[in-house]
């Protein structure tokens, strides 16, 4: 598997606050999905913005096709910008309210000289149809569209420049559940047809499971668990991932499990705890956890965890599943 986008040990600071602290991720060429999960403030969006060169890195590097993206200038930079695109949570605020949606898509085509001038209009129509809108929707303004339709426009605009990596930052969180289901289907269709690789940021583990082969769980700016989504969601090994996993509400009674809860301690990201960052909330913490920050280690094929006590945590999780109502 060749690596398309390689994030190497990146650190991102906001003044004195270290939002991302030594994160590495490998995104292979598409079709491929990598999910980023974690609570608000854990650094999900910051990592994605760092990877896209939208934020400066304090340390570490991001490589696209083995080339360091920080060195791109001029036409290389333009080419990089084309190769990576981002879709945000709120489609209402990513579209210019005074620009017709067709013009918004057209602008992307023009900036990146995607098609000859004579073919612009027909390409815009094609893109609208591709994302499930009508070819006649171009002259409409964003406010004349529903939230789901607007998100389709944003996706069409991103796809217009034929990106290789897409960042989807909570793309369906603002949408109704039936609309969400349709957008998720659209994303998985586009990914196959265009061999797309994406980083999907979501707080919804079920969405990640549906769209991502791999996932990384973040806690206070560090990756605490990563690997195959299936493995992590079936047997989360980090106590924090277990909290997340067991907190997911389920419609199906048979799938319901006892919620593992931990004290919610307000942690100051500007001065994170020594040792393992999760130790003040962790029921399994021992002396080692208070002193030595754990690094990622493999506990199974395609499954890494940064926890000194992952084996104990796994046992405990299995028990909690058995005792679930």
């Amino acid at each position: 598997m060749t690596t398309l986008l390689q994030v190497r040990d990146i650190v991102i600071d906001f003044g004195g606050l270290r939002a991302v602290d030594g994160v590495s991720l490998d995104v292979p060429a598409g079709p491929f999905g990598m999910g980023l999960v974690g609570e608000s403030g854990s650094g999900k969006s910051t990592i994605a913005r760092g990877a896209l060169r939208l934020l400066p890195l304090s340390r570490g590097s991001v490589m696209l096709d083995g080339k360091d993206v920080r060195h791109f200038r001029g036409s290389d930079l333009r080419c990089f910008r084309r190769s990576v695109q981002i879709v945000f949570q709120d489609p209402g605020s990513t579209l210019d309210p005074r620009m017709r949606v067709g013009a918004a898509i057209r602008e992307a085509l023009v900036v990146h000289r995607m098609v000859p001038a004579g073919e612009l209009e027909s390409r815009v129509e094609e893109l609208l149809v591709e994302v499930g809108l009508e070819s006649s929707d171009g002259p409409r303004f964003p406010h004349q569209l529903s939230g789901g339709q607007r998100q389709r426009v944003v996706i069409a605009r991103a796809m217009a420049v034929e990106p290789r990596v897409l960042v989807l930052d909570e793309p369906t969180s603002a949408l109704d559940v039936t609309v969400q289901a349709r957008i998720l289907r659209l994303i998985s269709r586009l990914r196959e047809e265009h061999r797309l690789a994406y980083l999907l940021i979501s707080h919804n583990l079920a969405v990640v499971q549906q769209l991502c082969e791999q996932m990384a769980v973040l806690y206070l700016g560090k990756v605490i668990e990563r690997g195959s989504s299936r493995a992590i969601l079936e047997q989360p090994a980090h106590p924090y991932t277990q909290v997340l996993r067991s907190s997911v509400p389920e419609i199906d009674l048979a799938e319901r499990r006892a919620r593992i809860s931990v004290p919610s301690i307000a942690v100051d990201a500007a001065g994170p705890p020594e040792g393992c960052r999760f130790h003040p909330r962790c029921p399994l913490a021992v002396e080692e956890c208070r002193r030595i920050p754990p690094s990622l280690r493999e506990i199974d094929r395609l499954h890494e965890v940064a926890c000194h006590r992952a084996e104990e945590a796994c046992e405990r999780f299995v028990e909690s599943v058995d005792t679930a109502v």
Partner: protein
Amino acid sequence: MILEIRNLAINFGARCVVDIEALDLRTGEILGLAGESGSGKTMTALAIMGLTATSGARISSGSITVDDRELVHQRDTDLRRIRGSQIAMIFQAPVSSFNPLFKVGYIFIRSLRLHGASRSEARAHAREALEEVMLPYDMLERRPYELSGGQAQRLAIALAVALRSQVLLADEPTSALDVSVQGEILDLIRRLRDRDGMAVLFISHDLAVVAELCDQVAVMRAGRIVEFGASSQVLHSPTNDYTRQLVDSVPKLGTRAG
């Protein structure tokens, strides 16, 4: 029956946005009001609070009673006595439910004083209520923007507890919270029901949350209740096509879903 809604119609001008024949809430019951945006969930809750006018809507007919007292078309001065003391409402964005200029303690004590508590009673009630929602008393020294989302939602619930509200209207109270914090808030609501017999109208677009928390559920679409029943029944074997479509749209995580 602590809350009864009969033939409630709410209009935006000529357009009818809510048309509910009957909806009842018993003491100690958690009733889910589920549906997509625009289905009329929030408007129904605002009608119960007598706040439809703030959004430009109008109750055109029907009746809402709490503890056998009619709420529709009551004077504001009468409603003010009922709001808070009998019915409390919490919202999706808990931090913005508090005025950022004041310490939350001031907001807390003032609300209790407005409902007739003496200064020392107000303090005592506040202390008990914070204990009940498991927040330290010194939380009252903070300003709203110094609270996390989970803390602010706990505080909003504590205010309802302190005012001894019998009915809690919870409008998407966990939609803006992280999933682990959401679990804590749901546990808290469940405990208030079990311990104090609080009746809860729980508005949510998240059917999985409704399935876990609510005893009964009413599914709304375009202002009407299209299906009603025990939430285990309705969400596992929906009889209405629209409910089934909603249930099928929820991404499922279960190990068996693969």
